[in-house]
């Protein structure tokens, strides 16, 4: 290809007349671009760090702003630029930025994508910084993202699923919040008999579906270390019992994790399988008494520990300052307390997680207990880094087909095992 550019040949003059005409016409017509602050490419300013994130929820944005204020207060003359990138675009934007050797100083991304981003060269290894970090022993292993012997990111907090319940509906039906699958099933029978919805969850054929499916699948004994069809078939049959009895609507195959919670918060459904990040929504939207119990998935059951990973961009001009930012905000006890206060995320540090703010709050306590009893690495360690996205998609699609009633439990289990085999063997 003739068009092969290197950074050294970066020039503002256009070699081709056509391009020049076009560009000058465009420039003449449009004037200049209003603001260039936060530009990751041009910003040579050594006292500015750029943080890319995908938060748009008011409370989550407040965490970012609080961190910015905290870091700027502790470090004179330093500016933090928080840059929003839409969730669906963050990964591809980071990876295409690698091609032109640009990118942010700090990346806050979906923890499950850590290996994709690390493989794509968007994250800088932070092994040295991490090993030299005094407080690293406070962090459980499940929140540190490593690939091929290098640490690339860690999480300042974890998100996980719990079972939200509508206390008014349960009281009316005369049932207690369930602690086992049997109790859950009889509670579902009781509330559907009373004309209420049973449970909402996401059946979207993608990673969100897999994230929501895994606790149920694992409660029947399924795991990725040794995937077997029998427990899958049992789990799928149980789910189809729910759709058959009307406890779970088949409509959930079109739902991401937001809609089912909003549906539950509207007040006509007894349970919702949803996360701790919904605490704010519950407070503002749910006009009934509610509570949370750990997902009743038993001893075998596994509840993924998700959340955002924080790492340093591969082309950060100021990795020292970026690390300092992470150390003083996301990875510090003070920073984690801010996130807990603003959005109710569970701190990843042992010392911060055992603070009274967590243990005294009935809702956070349920999540913390679930974390202790059933918490599992996300993505599952048995899945090779290259295959994570494929595995999530494959499970999500089958999960969706089961809820939608397209497949029998037997066929679905067989298909999923067949799909997973080559992926796990990679």
């Amino acid at each position: 290809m003739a068009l092969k550019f290197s950074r050294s040949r970066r020039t503002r003059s256009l070699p081709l007349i056509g391009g020049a005409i076009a560009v000058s016409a465009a420039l003449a017509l449009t004037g200049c671009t209003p603001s260039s602050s936060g530009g990751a490419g041009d910003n040579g300013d050594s006292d500015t760090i750029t943080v890319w994130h995908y938060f748009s929820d008011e409370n989550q944005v407040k965490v970012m702003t609080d961190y910015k204020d905290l870091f700027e207060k502790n470090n004179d003359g330093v500016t933090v630029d928080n840059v929003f990138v839409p969730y669906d675009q963050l990964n591809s934007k980071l990876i295409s930025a690698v091609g032109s050797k640009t990118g942010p100083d700090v990346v806050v991304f979906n923890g499950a994508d850590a290996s994709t981003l690390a493989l794509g060269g968007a994250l800088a290894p932070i092994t040295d910084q991490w090993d030299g970090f005094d407080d690293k022993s406070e962090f459980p292993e499940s929140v540190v993202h490593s690939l091929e012997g290098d640490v690339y990111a860690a999480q300042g907090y974890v998100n996980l699923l719990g079972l939200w319940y509508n206390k008014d509906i349960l009281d009316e039906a005369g049932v207690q919040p369930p602690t086992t699958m049997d109790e859950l099933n009889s509670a579902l029978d009781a509330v559907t008999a009373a004309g209420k919805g049973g449970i909402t969850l996401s059946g979207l054929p993608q990673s969100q579906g897999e994230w929501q499916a895994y606790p149920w699948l694992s409660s029947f004994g399924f795991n990725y270390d040794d995937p077997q069809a029998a427990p899958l078939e049992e789990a799928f049959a149980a789910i189809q019992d729910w759709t058959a009895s009307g406890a779970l609507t088949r409509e959930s195959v079109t739902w991401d994790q937001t809609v089912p919670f909003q549906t539950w918060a509207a007040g006509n459904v007894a349970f919702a399988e949803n996360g701790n990040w919904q605490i704010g929504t519950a407070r503002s939207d749910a006009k009934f008494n509610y509570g949370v119990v750990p997902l009743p998935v038993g001893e075998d059951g596994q509840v993924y520990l998700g959340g955002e990973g924080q790492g340093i961009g591969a082309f950060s001009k100021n990795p020292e300052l970026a690390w300092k930012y992470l150390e003083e905000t996301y990875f510090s006890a003070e920073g984690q307390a801010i996130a807990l206060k603003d959005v109710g995320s569970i701190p990843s540090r042992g010392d911060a997680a055992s603070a009274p703010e967590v243990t005294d709050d009935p809702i956070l306590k349920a999540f913390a207990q679930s974390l202790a009893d059933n918490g599992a690495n996300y993505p599952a360690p048995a899945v090779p880094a290259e295959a994570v996205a494929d595995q999530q998609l494959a499970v999500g699609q089958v999960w969706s087909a089961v809820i939608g009633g397209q497949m029998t439990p037997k066929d679905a289990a067989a298909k999923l095992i067949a799909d997973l085999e080559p992926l796990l063997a990679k």
Partner: protein
Amino acid sequence: MSIVIPRADATASAPSSPQPRRKKRFEPVAGPLRVVLLLIYAVPILFIVLTSLKQPGDVISSQSSFLFTPTLDAYTNVLSTSGLFVAMQQSLVIAAGTTALTLLVAIPAGYGLARVDSRITTIGLGLLIVLQMVPQTANVIPLYQIFGAWGLLDQNAGVIIADTALLIPFATLLLRPFFRAVPEALEEAASIDGASIPRTFWSIMLPIARNGVATTGTLVFLLSWGEFLYAVNFFLSPGNYPLSALLAQQVSAFGINWPGLMALGVITSIPILILFTFTYRLLREGLTLGAVK
């Protein structure tokens, strides 16, 4: 879908009427059909507007009812978003720049391809269709490399060029039949009178094909106004995002602000409606101008 059923009252039109085609005819069929069309498009719009007037908590619970306490919160929130007006200005600059640049390049191209019959035309048309087919996502990474090398990242010019490249095939294909519809005799007459080709093009072709040009321009403007993928990928600073990217901000992995999304949708579309009102008049006038002999 039935269009119009032949009616016995076909002769009802008076031939003496100067423009009978525009007058009311066949209202028994066309009238109700128009109302059906109105409903098909008005109901979703009504839903958008109603949702934008709800509290976030009411969106799911009052999906098919009109019983809710309306609030302007979503609009106040959106309008107080810092950067809304910068974003609107950005959208305007990008859409206007793209429209101008696209028309500048595509009008001559459409004309050229309409007037020349050769193998090159056939190949050209085929290639335009192929380009039209290339998924936009496939362009992002190569264009990022070009713009990175030319210092066009984070610049309006970069996004305008990308949008223009995306829309030239579309605009050229669309414009061609409009130029084709202009009788060649008109041009020949002009050239016999000694007018140069560019002059003929400017003073004869363009005025007659103006319906097509105005429509294509409107469509290009609309498309570049809503374009989102390039804007999000080629702007590195959020301060430069246009409205379409702001809209994406209402949807996140952690929640969707339905009233905010719908309110921003409404606000985003208002400039489009103003533009439409303008071109709608243009098109009506085009009718009489089009009859130039």
